[in-house]
């Protein structure tokens, strides 16, 4: 079986202006969502408490709200997810109330009302810890970007490194844009997914750039234009791109189906990252490298030591 039966190289680069416009539009949209709506940060970053409680015989959410109101926690959010038996309760940070006491107070009140209540999970994060996790998350993204730029600059060339990181930051901004637009909860696991996407979709750019470098040193392509070389590289790695992303996406879909509540947003972030990763490495990374002035000359010395 061979999905891509291309006779000639597809002239991707011809559409680079179009894709640039498209990317800028998506980017601006994402950025505007982020600046107006912001991210729906989970308690990992804001501090607060999440309690997942189970009722084997099912429960009315309104009853729980009333119980919480009776202990002066009317600012809590109560929601069902998936089924009648599981309920998620979110409580904001309360000044002067120890987080450990808060969850105990809630479970005592709920248990008094209905003794069949089971605690399935509690996550409580203090404000200071939340700030630190947020800070560490930002540091991690910075660290990954710098690390990748340095590595690619060393192995390829700075133009490729810049192009690859722009392509990938583009993906990250889009993921964040989606999370902002739909107000999906952004927590630590989602952050892990974002970082995994950063590392993973650079793969894509690396594979294409690798071909570009190889084409540059081919005798038969010595007289080709940079855009032709890029078109050829992209076309010939197309099949691999699709297969790889398809297989990774299959696993991610499997996580979406079976992974449950905790892995749900993680898998969502990965899905967006993988889909836009294909687009960005081809239609953002390559044009970028071209506009930055990549040519045979830049890569000449790098190709020598490879042989």
């Amino acid at each position, binding site marked *: 079986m061979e999905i891509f039966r291309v006779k000639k190289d597809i002239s991707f680069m011809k559409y680079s202006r179009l894709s640039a416009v498209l990317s800028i539009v998506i980017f601006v949209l994402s950025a505007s969502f982020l600046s107006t709506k912001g991210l729906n940060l989970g308690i990992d970053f804001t501090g607060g408490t999440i309690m997942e409680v189970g009722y084997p015989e099912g429960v009315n959410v309104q009853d729980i709200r009333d119980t919480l109101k009776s202990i002066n926690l009317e600012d809590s959010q109560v929601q069902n997810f998936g089924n009648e038996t599981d309920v998620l309760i979110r409580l904001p940070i309360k000044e002067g109330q120890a987080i450990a006491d808060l969850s105990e107070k809630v479970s005592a009140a709920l248990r008094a009302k209905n003794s069949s209540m089971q605690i399935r999970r509690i*996550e409580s*994060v203090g404000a200071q810890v939340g700030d630190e996790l947020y800070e560490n998350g930002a540091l991690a993204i910075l660290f990954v970007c710098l690390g990748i730029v340095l590595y690619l600059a060393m192995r390829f060339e700075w133009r490729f490194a810049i192009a690859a990181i722009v392509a990938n930051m583009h993906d990250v901004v889009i993921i964040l844009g989606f999370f902002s637009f739909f107000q999906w909860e952004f927590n630590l696991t989602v952050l892990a997914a974002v970082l995994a996407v950063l*590392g993973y979709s650079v793969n894509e750019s690396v594979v294409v750039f690798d071909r570009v470098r*190889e084409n540059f040193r081919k005798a038969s392509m010595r007289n080709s234009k940079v855009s032709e070389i890029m078109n050829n590289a992209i076309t010939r790695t197309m099949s691999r791109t699709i297969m790889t992303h398809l297989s990774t996406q299959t696993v*991610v*879909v499997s996580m979406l189906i079976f992974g*449950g509540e905790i*892995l749900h947003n993680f898998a969502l972030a990965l899905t967006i990252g993988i889909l836009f990763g294909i687009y960005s490495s081809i239609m953002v990374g390559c044009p970028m490298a071209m506009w930055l002035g990549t040519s045979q000359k830049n890569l000449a010395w790098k190709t020598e030591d490879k042989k």
Partner: protein
Amino acid sequence: MNQTSHWKYFVIITSVLLSLIYTLPNFYGEAPAVQVMSIESGEKIDISILKSIETTLKDSNISIDKLLVEDIGIKVKLESLEDQLKAKKLIQDAIGDNYVVALNLLPNSPNWLTNIGALPMHLGLDLRGGVHFLMQLDMSKAKDKGIDNLLFSVRKELQKEKVPYFDSTRIDGSIQIKFKNELDRETAKDVFKSMGSGREIKVKWATKKTQSYNFVETNSANAFILNVKPNAYTNEDSQILAVKQNLETLNNRINELGVAEPVIQQQGADRIVVQLPGVQDTAKAKEIIGRTAMLEMRMVEENQTAYDAAIAGNIPPGHDLFNDRFGNPVLVKKQVVLTGERIIDAAPGTDSITGKSIVSITLDGQGANTFKQVTRENVGKRIALILIEKKITEVVTAPVIKSEIGGGRVQITGMDNAQNATDIALLLRAGSLATPMEIVEERTVGPSMGKENISRGVRSTIWGFIAIVTMMAIYYMGFGLVSVISLSVNLIFLVALLSIIQATLTLPGIAAIALTLGMAIDANVLINERIRDEIRNGNTPQASISIGYEKAWGTLLDSNMTTMIAGLALFIFGSGPIKGFAVVLVLGILTSMYSSIWVSRGIINYIYGNRRHIDKLSIGEIFKVDNN
């Protein structure tokens, strides 16, 4: 050209076999067990109780599957969950209160596996259920306490050297002592200097001495004042000591809880992580851990006028007004006679004469000396036992000192009942905290949730794996099957590695296993596409295989390194479950490189390498473009 040398085959086969062996324990599951530990944490267990455990269980017809004697205690593996609960109670009754019996799970794998150190993967709290707490220590209190300690010893030294002073207090981070004349002040400075050279502590790789002092001298109308500020390292030292003592106290308290494999670790300069696998009663755990109880013994103010003034809302300086457990106010002096740190043991009991519940306390040497002196000087007066718990200060009891009490044995009367006596004894025995702590992060996972998380993770992985396998086999035929084999080997390597290094597996960690499978196949796809490409370019099958693998290697290295960088960042900046994700991601990249390059190449070479003539590779249909 497509030959794999014998030693490479040897390495491949050995590594696969070893991995299989180390993966095995994960399939046997775990069996219920009880674990017997000494109540004093870290203390070795008396082997003689082994016999009593055996006979107790035998008498009740509970069969012992396996009996393990380890440094931390005795583990008894049992056959069923009912046996486990029964055994816990029976053993506890049989061996008494000096030991704790905890429920545990032991790997069910055969002995020979356990003997070679093959253990199942270590599951994180989100998979096995349990409680995780992050505790924040109040370091300003620790600093104050360090200075208080210094103040106490200086007073003692000054008295010993007969240097008169008329006032000594802690002011912010320093000590202020007032003298009548210049000469006394100078002598006091020498006293400070002679008080030992201090301890050596490590600060950022350099060894620093504690207890060197900054002296500032000021004079007022009627006093020569000496301000003594300990250097920064002394403060740091008291913080280090505070963390150490709180860790120790926590260890003791958690031991009382009877948790099989607790984790109690320092994190950063001023935090402690506590993980209690399998604990379901979070309220109880929090009560015992989060209890910021501190015990102080102080003298009661016997002066009636002072007492009346205090009741009227005019508390005399140097005094505190607290309530006792019945709500009656008690006026006590600020000066602390003894703190809970000096308590070695505390046990509940009954007074042989009155029959009322009491708690008897044993003090350490220094505590005993102080207590003896204080009781000698204060016969007929009352001494208050003050408990500071959750910012509430309460006088537990304030008995009258009937005579000098030596030998460090103290009986406290005034308990409500036997339960009350037991609680207070436990609190005292478990030691006091050097500085208060607060829970700043809690993650609790119920047991059913843990099991569910495992099945969610495993199902995601299995279905993802099946889908990939099908896709690869259809698309790349023979080479696809080889990719599938190398992917399976990769999975085995990964699980074996995780089992060997006993890294903590979390739900995001399982997600990372699934994800690395999806990503690892990239290596095979890359190689297979390269080979197709080479064939398309008109190379012979043998040459195509060789060139395909070689060219793919460079690309693979680069693309995996970038994911590796992301993994490392997650490991460095992440915490808890995210760290688990990072570990698996990084290991998965390493194993996938090994399995896709070495293992799959080895298999391909085994199939095709020796054939002189190959018509066609089984790599699926290759679409060829007529070269124009």
